[in-house]
């Protein structure tokens, strides 16, 4: 098992409620993976801001004080930039967010030089990624999900099968700017695909099968695929059981493997698109009685853009 709940808000007037709606959905998928969880939120004020890159780092404690982290990143950026990059560090729950007015590549370089052991779990202008072990509702509460505004939200409760119950093994996997992927299922040929990506120079953070899926999608997008094309290609290369949800800065996609053992249900209204492992996670959404509710067809890629 594993639980997924994802929400794309089409109506901006619902943005202030993103966290509370996602939290109510997450609450209903806890049974599917009660040991660890992860969240991705898009365009959440206080976590990310336009024109600024934000890196999400695993853990609240990076081994050095936040002031030292800020100073270290600032100093490194000052060496290569004409203007002040306004580096800032914020700890939210079990996650450290580092932001600066530079591209993500420069920020990644500055952060990894300052804290060589840092694990980057999210990157981009729009997304913040948070993961931890423990009861998913505690993970959500520790990060303050309930109060978060935003345009999209993605949550995952993990029943670990292919690798250990660790925060790093939790989903989402966010391996390119504003790209997140969550997975219910298991990839059976991930080691083979991993070797192929390693030969292309792709670097991995974990032994997790889902990370291979995320790295593969990122690799395809980098080569010019649309999100839909990348997921069609994933279906040709990766074997196994999966329901995947992939989000980008302005899009959300859902795909199930052709055997479709892993559940998924979608509710669509003029105001939002919501996807969950089980209908009960959608039951409390506003206007659900008039939503178009359907299960995604096996092997078909669905995408929605804001």
């Amino acid at each position: 098992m594993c639980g997924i709940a994802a929400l794309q808000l089409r109506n901006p007037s619902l943005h202030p409620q993103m966290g509370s709606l996602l939290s109510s959905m997450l609450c209903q998928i806890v049974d599917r993976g009660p040991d660890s969880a992860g969240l991705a939120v898009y365009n959440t004020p206080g976590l990310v801001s336009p024109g600024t890159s934000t890196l999400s780092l695993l853990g609240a404690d990076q081994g050095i004080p936040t002031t030292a982290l800020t100073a270290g990143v600032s100093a490194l950026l000052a060496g290569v930039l004409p203007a002040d990059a306004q580096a800032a560090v914020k700890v939210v729950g079990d996650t450290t967010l580092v932001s600066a007015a530079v591209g993500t590549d420069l920020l990644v370089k500055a952060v990894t030089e300052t804290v060589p052991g840092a694990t980057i779990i999210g990157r981009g202008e729009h997304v913040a990624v948070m993961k931890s072990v423990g009861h998913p509702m505690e993970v959500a509460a520790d990060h303050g999900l309930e109060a978060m505004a935003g345009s999209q939200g993605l949550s995952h409760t993990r029943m670990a099968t292919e690798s250990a119950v660790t925060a790093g093994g939790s989903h989402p996997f966010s391996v390119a700017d504003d790209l997140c992927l969550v997975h219910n299922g298991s990839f059976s040929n991930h080691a083979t695909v991993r070797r192929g990506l390693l030969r292309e120079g792709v670097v991995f953070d974990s032994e997790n099968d889902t990370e291979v899926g995320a790295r593969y999608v990122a690799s395809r997008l980098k080569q010019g695929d649309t999100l839909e094309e990348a997921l069609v290609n994933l279906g040709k290369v990766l074997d196994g059981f999966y329901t995947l949800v992939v989000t980008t800065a302005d899009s959300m996609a859902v795909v199930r493997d052709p055997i479709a053992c892993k559940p998924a249900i979608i509710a669509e209204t003029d105001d939002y698109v919501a996807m969950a492992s089980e209908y009960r996670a959608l039951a409390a959404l506003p206007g659900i009685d008039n939503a178009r509710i359907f299960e995604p067809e096996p092997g078909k890629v669905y995408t929605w853009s804001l």
Partner: protein
Amino acid sequence: MVTLTAPETAAPEAAAPAESDGGAAPTVVDLADASVRSLNQALHDAVDGQSWTITSPGGKHSLAVGISARVAVTIEGHTGYYAAGMHQKGDVTINGNAGVGLAENIISGRVHVTGDASQSAAATGHGGLVVIDGNAGARCGISMKGVDIVVGGNIGHMSAFMAQAGRLVVCGDAGDALGDSIYEARIYVKGTVASLGADCIEKPLREEHLAELAELLEAAGRTDNPADFKRYGSARNLYHFHVDNSSAY
């Protein structure tokens, strides 16, 4: 939590007269307040002739599982996994969609879903009738052992996999590998079949088949013309071991 009691032990004023058939008014259970466990226990304790209305199901799992009396249950909304599982004798109507494993292992009675059903509807059913007005997902009627299933819309792939007995009627289209490794059971499809599974073939639609199909459609409250359907069933080529296949073992 509300503790539920079966109507015959409830206060007299609860048994108000209703319906022209003289039956008691349905016992209403709102799952916004009551637990699934207390609901199912009350349904297990129920006796023939009682009726129940369940509100606010909210996609909860295992609703109305294990009914074994001639009770009528109406669920107003969508149900989660395994609704009306292990069902006997009673009549369950779900005014909404049903999740995975609807009416799994049904023995007798009737289960009716007005919306769609997820995968594995009526799996391993031994008897009774399951009616799905909308679409059913993959593996509908998997390992069916005598249940009758009528689907108003389409069914997903691998439906009637290893079907042993019973009838599956599909008024829409069937997905891939219909009736794979079928033993017996008769399958009627009005629309297209994406592909037939191993040892499942089209068979002639004779008078007795038109007659039973008409009965099934009527029982499901449908007006489709039986002559518009095609019949599929077992080629019976997998019944016996062929020595030619010995190298496969």
